[in-house]
């Protein structure tokens, strides 16, 4: 009555694929299909005439990509997006690490309070957060201007934070970082709890200074987590759309275009659906390059364990 070993082997080999099939199917349906459609669209010359009539759009080959890639403005936006991502990620990680380290040393009650606050921030919808930051930095009635004007010698009443895109992006970076810190800080806190107390104690006994302790004991333990969180943050920040859209009242100036916003405007404001699709595809490619780093780290870490 023993089952033939061959059948069992097949079943063992097939089972994992059967188990993962629903996930793969769901991903193919909600991500794969639109993505294929997007790539196709970027090689066509879709206009509203085809959209409204349902006629097949003409094939455009690489024309969309050529016009996008040869446009200096596109590269300005790419550079701006990259810079924005770097600033946001660095600020997020530094702040999160400081918060996480602080949470390790404060009293239990304070730690609970901090956790509560972080979770509350994490739970706040982007929509609400962006609106609040917009009101805080309002030129006429904003609290930020009022507060800063209390500093002697500083008059910021009626100062418009969005007139100068550098200042405007400072506010937008504020919202993005503020929203990202809870996740990063709590994840790092979890990683910090993996640092063996004996190890830290031994280092201190051996005369290690706090900085050395962090450099040689704490950091090696939390490094894998930090790398993962950094990659995830980079991917999120590269694709930022909502914060800019909401803080510029749905009408972002050209100086505020990041890749996501630029693609959306080309597609749905200027109605160059195919050019917008090409920009989106290029953005996805750039993100994929980032994702490769992330996946390599994952594999690397897996191998290390």
């Amino acid at each position, binding site marked *: 009555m023993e089952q033939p070993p061959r059948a069992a082997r097949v079943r063992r080999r097939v089972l994992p694929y059967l188990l993962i099939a629903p996930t793969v199917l769901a991903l193919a349906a909600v991500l794969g299909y639109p993505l294929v459609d997007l790539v196709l669209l970027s090689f066509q010359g879709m206009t509203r005439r085809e959209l409204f009539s349902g006629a097949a759009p003409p094939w455009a080959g690489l024309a969309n990509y050529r016009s996008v890639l040869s446009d200096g403005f596109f590269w300005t936006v790419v550079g701006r997006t990259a810079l924005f991502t770097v600033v946001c990620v660095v600020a997020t990680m530094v702040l999160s690490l400081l918060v996480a380290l602080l949470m390790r040393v404060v009293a239990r009650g304070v730690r609970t309070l901090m956790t509560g606050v972080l979770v509350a921030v994490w739970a706040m919808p982007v929509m609400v957060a962006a609106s609040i930051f917009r009101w805080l930095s309002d030129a006429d009635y904003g609290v930020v201007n009022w507060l800063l004007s209390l500093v002697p010698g500083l008059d910021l009443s009626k100062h418009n934070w969005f007139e100068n895109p550098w200042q405007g992006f400072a506010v937008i970076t504020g919202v993005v970082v503020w929203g990202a810190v809870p996740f990063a800080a709590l994840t790092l806190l979890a990683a910090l709890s993996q640092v063996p107390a004996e190890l830290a104690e031994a280092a201190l006994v051996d005369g290690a200074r706090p900085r050395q302790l962090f450099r040689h004991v704490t950091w090696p333990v939390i490094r894998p987590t930090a790398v993962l969180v950094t990659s995830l943050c980079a991917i999120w920040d590269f694709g930022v759309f909502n914060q800019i859209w909401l803080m510029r009242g749905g*009408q972002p100036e050209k100086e505020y275009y990041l890749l996501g916003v630029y693609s959306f405007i080309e597609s749905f404001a200027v109605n160059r659906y195919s050019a917008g699709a090409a920009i989106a595809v290029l953005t996805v490619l750039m993100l994929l390059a980032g994702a490769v780093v992330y996946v390599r780290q994952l594999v690397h870490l897996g191998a290390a364990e």
Partner: protein
Amino acid sequence: MAERISRSAAGLGAFAMLAAVAGCGGGKPVAAADRADELTVWLTVDAQESWPDLVTEVNRRFRQTYPKVKVTVQYQQWTTKNQKIDAALAGRDVPDVIEMGNSETTNYIVNGAFTTVDPAKYDHSGQWLPALRDACRYEGKTYCVPYYVGARVGIYRTDLLARVGVAGAPRSYPELRADLDKLKAKFGAADKNFSAFYMPGRYWYAAMAFVKDAGGEIAVSRDGRWHGTLSSARSVAGLTAWKQLLDAYYTGDRSKDNGDEPAVVGQGRVGMFYGNTWEAKAATDSRSGGDPALRGKFATFAFPGPSGGLLPPFLGGSTLAIPAKSARQDLAQDWIRLFTDRTSQRRLIAADTLPNNTAQLREVAAGGVNGPAARAAEHGWVTPPAPGWTAVEKSNVLPEMLQDIATGKRSVADAARAADRRIDAVINEH
């Protein structure tokens, strides 16, 4: 994908035809009274807020002819309406009647989104306001039906003007500036947030009125192609006059648009502003952020321009169109006919709105709140009927140019040249 849509659309058409044939049952057309169907109408929130009884009344009259047709009226926000329309038109389930702003129609007509209508079936179609009629016409055919129009006027605080010793509204530009000077001297000295004249930097309907007043244009068509002409000498003169007015009398944020104008005016720190007549009412309504204490303290006037005539106002109006994909075009036509006939137009006039035709423009009381608007409407202008005009509007070329000018980031000529380049890039695209 597109091919699939067209095939299914063809299938749908065949199905509709079959259904119609089956419904005819031996060639006899179904009597209107027996026709069971549904009609979906997309109006903007204006109808819901300002003349809901007109919608109810028209639906009641429509039911007298078609007792078994269920009419569903859905209200859309101006800001999100077109994205919803685009999505709907790309699919199969389209609304049967759509309200379109008169600056939005051309692009949809050029791209075959709407079906033609026969003007002869509509009241006063021979006297439709050019601003609306032209927005509906393309290559000799008519694709939508004018609904209503609005013209901006000057609005002032009667009490504040009385306190600086001025009895009535200004009738010329020098008079206007003299009045504003007095307001500024009296109230601006004590309150640095007081604007004698409210003119936010991104308010393009106002700024373009000054361009028109100086004889300039936003864009013109030459040899079948559109070009931005904001950097022409006349346009620049108009923009410069607008900037001077703003520099002299406006103290608020220059990167704002006029979206919350009634609420700001309702704060009581504004002497005069340029806006739609309903905004005076909204400034005294707490629901729109206004102050009820200001009730009865606003009056309207035909706004004089620097050139010596009246400042030509943008005629913002609405039209009603029937999507080419609608399966109930005959019902849609009948509904629009009732909704825009002379009885309905009279109801709109009662709601302080301007009618769609010059004949009934004369029914607007000259002494009423809308009298100056009716007078100004005769000199009104519309946005260029270019295929890519919506793209120009939606990519915010004009507000961004004005913001650069208002904040002093760029000179008028510089900003205008940059805007022309951006206009040229998209205005000819379908």
